[in-house]
């Protein structure tokens, strides 16, 4: 496996600042804004965005977390590893009713996680709108899903793997691309 760094910690911080600025610009009703991270790495990313947004609006920005395991379309024996996804916390302390929810995830790939996340959210209420913010868009969509806020677009092959590492979960910040080395 060959590993290429896509974002180093400084670049990752700058990308987050830009994403936060774009969200503030495009969602001017900051009272309605509710950032919701998708477990696992979407949650600390949402928290960092919330801190940046809070600093610019002067308002404490609420953050929620959702786990989409029970809404996936690939649970059951057909999963290659025969291993059910570990279920993590779903925490929406404020109601999403009438809010502008910005769903936050680390990597946008097939779009299946986003579909599951939308269904999860809908079971908690009827938001005014849902937007999607991702740190990395690596392409290869299998569903008609597009992000509203993209940190970095990374063209990839399906055989490649994109790994986002976030300090709160992985002990370091950065984005890497893994590719098979040609024999």
């Amino acid at each position: 496996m060959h590993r290429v760094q896509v974002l180093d910690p400084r670049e990752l911080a700058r990308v987050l600042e830009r994403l936060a600025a774009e969200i503030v610009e495009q969602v001017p009703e900051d009272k309605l804004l509710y950032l919701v991270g998708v477990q696992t790495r979407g949650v600390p990313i949402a928290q960092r965005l919330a801190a940046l947004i809070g600093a610019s609006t002067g308002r404490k920005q609420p953050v929620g977390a959702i786990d989409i395991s029970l809404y996936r379309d690939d649970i059951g024996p057909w999963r290659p590893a025969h291993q059910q996804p570990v279920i993590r916390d779903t925490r929406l302390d404020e109601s999403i009713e009438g809010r502008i929810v910005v769903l936050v995830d680390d990597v946008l790939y097939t779009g299946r996680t986003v579909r599951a996340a939308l269904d999860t959210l809908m079971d908690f209420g009827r938001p005014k709108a849902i937007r999607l913010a991702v740190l990395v868009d690596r392409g290869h969509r299998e569903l008609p899903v597009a992000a509203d806020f993209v940190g970095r677009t990374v063209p990839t092959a399906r055989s490649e793997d994109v790994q986002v590492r976030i300090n709160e979960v992985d002990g370091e910040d950065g984005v890497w691309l893994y590719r098979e080395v040609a024999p």
Partner: protein
Amino acid sequence: MSVTPAKRLRGKDLVGIDPLHPGEIQLILDTADQMRSIAERPIKKVPALRGKTVVNLFFEASTRTRFSFEVAEKRLSADSLNFAASTSAVTKGETLIDTALNLEAMQPDFIVIRHQCPGAPHQLARILKSAVINAGDGAHEHPTQALLDALTIRSKRGTLEGLVVAIVGDLQHSRVVRSNVMLLSRMGAKVRVAAPPSLIPVGMETLGCEVHRRIEDAISGADVVMMLRIQLERQGRMNFPTPREFYDFYALTPERLKLAKKDALVMHPGPMNRGVEIDSRVADGPQSVILEQVTNGVAVRMAVLYLLAGGQGEPTAD
């Protein structure tokens, strides 16, 4: 030292606590912890088992367990079919195996079985392709009860390790005690059991518990006191003179509860015989977690269904 959860369950079935490793028990409890919050959502239902069919095959009377499984199945969006032996072809002489094979011909994904014969779920598990879940087999095992008891204790005390758990009552006829002793001792708790000598099965201590004849010896300093129902319907010959005498010598009363730790948890798998093995003042008292056990039962059964739906496979590297 806390137990690292396994990545998955190894078996296709849950026939008992006996075949489970501590890591698998930990995985079920961790998953159940997450399932609990679904009951607090505006929509108490997730699509995880959409399109799956569960047959609830109950050859013995049950309200709590059958309802609990049914609620768990519905919360996960599975379709449940209920079977009661009294209204089925069993009354026409059909054997268990034939009943099960006929049900399986309708392609269910899970069969939840309660049967008066120990080993009935194990036999079905060997024959059927569906995942078999034991909801109580004779006086043998009742794995989901032990798991919900463990979840209740863990959510109150943070851990099972190092706790002293006293289990008192009809040990002879109880499947709950067997599953509980195996689970709790495997997870690092110290288990003491107590009953009149006539209600202590031979070889009880080989399960990994201390056996006492006086309730006072078992509950002194205990973190948890779990009372078992006197199964009046199963006493072929009376193993004790009268329920009243049982109360006098073995019931958990407010006075006896003082022997346990100050904040000891009081548990009972239900249905209770008030005034026989447990005094109402204790059953309804501040230390009782009896109704939380029922709530946790749904979460544990959801976890088991969800994890077994992953199917059987080779261990993975990641």
